[in-house]
């Protein structure tokens, strides 16, 4: 059951991320908007992250057959996803999130070199959780400003991904519980919610212009 859900989640994450990423690229090529460029990086990273984990599971299932995905593959996939979540949060002007001092900036990443891949996964999951919560709150706040109903769906989607990330991280404490399954189900719900408003964008009327910069 977990294996099936894991595959559905990763495949769906790959496809949803790719679809939104490609739409953002088309938008960037047509308008030159830096916001759409950041969204492109964000969702293509998220897509790539899910793809890496999906490939890890597929290779493990059909080639290696060890019963467990290689830990570093999972960590790599989650790290790439975290980069994507960072760019979503960055699009909401997250600059104030970082310390002003160059000293703190330089030592801030030091812990990443001092921990094992298991701990790294915990760190990336917790960072992803913070970034997703930030993105969800900012998106919901934007709804109160412009009353765009699509923002509710995206906000809920990011919120569900954050909750799923939290439960996924927490399931390490109770490995045999239902938490991990719940985490993946919630994340699948989050991805669907994220895609709903984006699927309504009428891209067919847009003429893709190669010459416009």
């Amino acid at each position, binding site marked *: 059951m977990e294996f099936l859900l894991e595959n559905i989640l990763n495949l769906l994450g790959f496809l949803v991320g790719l679809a939104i990423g490609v739409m953002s690229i088309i*938008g960037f090529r047509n308008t030159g908007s830096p*916001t759409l460029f950041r969204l492109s990086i964000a969702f293509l990273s998220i897509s790539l992250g899910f793809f890496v984990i999906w490939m890890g599971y597929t290779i493990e299932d059909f080639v290696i057959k060890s019963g467990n995905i290689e830990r570093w593959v999972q960590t790599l996939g989650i790290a790439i996803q975290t980069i994507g979540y960072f760019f979503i949060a960055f699009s909401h002007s997250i600059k104030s999130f970082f310390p002003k001092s160059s000293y703190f900036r330089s030592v801030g990443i030091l812990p990443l070199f001092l921990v094992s891949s298991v701990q790294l996964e915990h760190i990336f999951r917790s960072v992803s959780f913070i970034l997703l919560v930030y993105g969800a709150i900012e998106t919901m706040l934007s709804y109160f400003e412009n009353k*765009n109903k699509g923002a509710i769906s*995206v906000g809920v989607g990011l919120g569900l991904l954050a909750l799923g990330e939290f439960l996924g991280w927490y399931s390490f404490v109770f490995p045999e519980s239902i938490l991990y399954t719940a985490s993946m189900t919630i994340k699948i719900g989050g991805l669907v919610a994220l895609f709903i408003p984006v699927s309504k964008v009428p891209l067919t*009327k*847009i003429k893709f212009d190669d010459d416009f910069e």
Partner: protein
Amino acid sequence: MAEYRTHMKIIGDILLTTRDDLRDEDGATVTYLIRKANISHSRISRILKTLVSQGLLEQIDSQGSNKYRISQTGREFLQAYNTFTNFADNFGLNI
């Protein structure tokens, strides 16, 4: 408090003005665009120069004064701009 507008939003406002506000094909004067877009003369001059060079606006000489009207490329850009403004709105972002 005044709403912050991105460079892209200002361009969108200028193109929208030249498309929707003008009844004929005469084009808009710089003074009219300054008033509608609410930006300084020096800034709008730079933007108009860019928009003309990109083919989004056409510059026409009318009775000794420069006027601007939207081109077909500009109309297509504006359509894409509106679509992707809604797209970014879904994420709570401004393009």
